[in-house]
């Protein structure tokens, strides 16, 4: 081996070994959790594991148009007796799971399991129907078969307000049941609005900081950085102090007589509160990247534009603005992505009308509907990742700067 070759190789291994620990760490603490989430969203083996024989027979031998065969009824009865002697709670889980697909069938399971124990039956179909006539309904059997699939897209369908119709087509659910698409659209609308508001306020601020004298510029930058470093919860509570019915803004409006005391404005627990608070909280994420680009821009360009005969507006639109675009893109991406997943502020100042998709995720996780919560999270994650990849292709993620 030539010595030169050797040192070249060694030169490559050192950085690989330096970066490996963090890559492994992110793999375990970030990618693996996302993997759990993906699995949770598609995998649900409760019914398949509890009633394996029944599910297998239903999938393989049942014609799906008439009642299942005596064999299937017998298998179900024996599995029910067996499982309920081992652990009664398992039957309850199956009942819940099937009930979500076929509402109003939860009580069938406990009742049947209880009564079956004391019956010596030869004709199981008749016996089961005798215990509860819902065993005669095809819909219940469809439910068991469907719930018995280990992997299913049902959480995703649910999360997109879709369902499988009786004919097997994917269709939108009835209008009253639609909940999520509106929320994605609302979240998207809020994220776009907040990004635009931040850009409208943030660009002039960044420009002012970049073009002020060194001392003023330093003070102005600190005014942007203090909120950036301040606790999100502290800043959210300050908006409650300002916006609530008995809050500072309403008090001032009443004191100067613009608003009657009994007609105080509702400034929070609605979309307005969410938008205002989110804009203020995310504004530094817009100002800082734009400022860092403007600050490194040589002033001679603008002078050159002027001496070549451009008026100030032309100089701005043709020279200044195009050069500042990397900062504008970086700031907009940061604000938009942060806004898409915002949870704390809408939860505290948004009321019901200002809730975003993240609040729905938390709601489902807290109410033990993990699969659905995971599916919505995956949809949000994929949208954000697509944006991130587009951005990386387009501008380069390594251009992100913080201070």
């Amino acid at each position, binding site marked *: 081996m030539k010595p030169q070759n050797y040192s070249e190789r060694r030169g490559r291994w050192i950085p690989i070994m330096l970066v490996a620990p963090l890559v492994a760490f992110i793999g375990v603490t970030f990618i693996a959790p996302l993997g759990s989430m993906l699995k949770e969203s598609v995998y649900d083996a409760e019914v398949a594991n509890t009633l394996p024989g029944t599910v297998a027979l239903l999938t393989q031998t049942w014609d799906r148009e008439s009642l299942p065969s005596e064999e299937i009824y017998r298998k179900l009865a024996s599995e029910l007796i067996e499982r309920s002697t081992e652990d009664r709670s398992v039957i309850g889980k199956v009942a819940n799971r099937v009930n979500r697909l076929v509402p109003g069938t939860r009580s069938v399971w406990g009742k049947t399991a209880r009564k079956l124990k004391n019956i010596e039956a030869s004709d199981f179909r008749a016996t089961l129907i005798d215990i509860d006539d819902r065993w005669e309904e095809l819909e219940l059997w469809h439910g068991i078969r469907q719930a018995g699939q280990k992997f299913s897209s049902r959480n995703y369908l649910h999360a997109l307000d879709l369902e499988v119709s009786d004919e097997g087509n994917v269709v939108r659910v009835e209008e009253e049941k639609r909940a999520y698409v509106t929320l994605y659209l609302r979240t998207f609308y809020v994220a776009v609005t907040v990004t635009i508001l931040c850009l409208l306020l943030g660009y002039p601020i960044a*420009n002012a900081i970049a073009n002020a004298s060194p001392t003023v510029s330093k003070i102005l930058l600190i005014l942007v950085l203090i909120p950036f470093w301040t606790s*999100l919860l502290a800043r959210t509570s300050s908006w*409650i102090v300002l916006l609530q019915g*008995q809050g*500072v803004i309403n008090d001032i409006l009443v004191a100067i007589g613009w608003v009657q005391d009994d007609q105080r404005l509702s400034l929070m627990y609605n979309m307005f509160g969410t938008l205002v608070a989110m804009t203020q909280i995310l504004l530094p994420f817009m100002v800082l990247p734009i400022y860092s680009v403007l600050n490194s821009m040589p002033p001679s360009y603008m002078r050159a534009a002027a001496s070549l005969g451009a008026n100030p*507006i032309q100089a701005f639109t043709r020279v200044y603005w195009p050069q500042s675009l990397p900062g504008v893109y970086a700031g907009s991406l940061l604000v938009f992505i942060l806004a898409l997943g915002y949870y*704390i502020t809408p939860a505290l100042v948004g009321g019901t009308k200002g809730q975003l998709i993240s609040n729905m995720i938390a709601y489902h996780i807290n109410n033990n509907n993990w699969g659905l919560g995971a599916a919505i999270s995956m949809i949000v994650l994929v949208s954000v990742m697509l944006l991130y990849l587009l951005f990386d292709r387009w501008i380069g*993620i390594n251009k992100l700067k913080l201070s």
Partner: protein
Amino acid sequence: MEQILWNLSRGVVVSVVIFGFLFLTLPLLVFVPLSFNAEPYFTFTEGMLRLDSDAYSLRWYRAIFENEDWRRAIANSFVIGMFATIVATILGTLAALALNNPKLPFRRSLGAFIISPMVTPIIVVAVGVYFFYTEVGIAKLSLGSFQIGPYIGIILAHAMIGAPYVVITVSASLAGFDHTLLKAAKISGAGPFTAFRRVQLPLLSPGVITGALFAFITSFDEVVIVLFMAGIQQRTIPREMWSGIREEISPTILAVATLLVIFAVIVLLTVEWLKHLSEKNRTGTA
């Protein structure tokens, strides 16, 4: 005509800038006086507006330190923040050194991968982390009667979301690092490790400490992961504020918020001082 238009737009821009700065900073100042309210309200009393000294008191600040929940929350925040910062800073600094070495293969993709936790919505991270640690059984781990599991879960998650900040700040100070200094060290007989420890690391330290502060604040301020993972015993300051705002709104929250603003100012001044230091290093005037 153009001159008028230009002056008009200048006027608009100046008012937008003034409004923007007021909008950014006033909300931080509003709750400071309210935290000294002698009454248990979230609003200014008449006495406060008259600047009556009886209308002001320190009772909410005393309430923080007399309340066991708040004391525990403060301790939790600092312990979790410190451990998360140590992990994030060590891993992040090493990775930044590698990412700035042109010999590293797949440099761009690795960089994007390492930054990805930062651009993932925190609610998504929190849900994934919650499922994962429940699945592998860390969430319920305990040492005797001490529930260590949630701490481990929260610390690892906070280190993960903090590490990208360390990578970014250390990379920024590496960008200005003069590599001839390492050659000089080599000529003077230093091995690569000695050269790193005695020459490169001291010059990078402002960047490393800035990154560590970013990681610490990220953990200190994080509440969504804590909401999912923490039981009563592991609640941090923002978690305690969250329930305070939702359940019983009292000026104690505003007193805590005021202390947090003061803390933020201290951190900010430290970061600015470090930045100044690292610029001095760069230009060699130190």
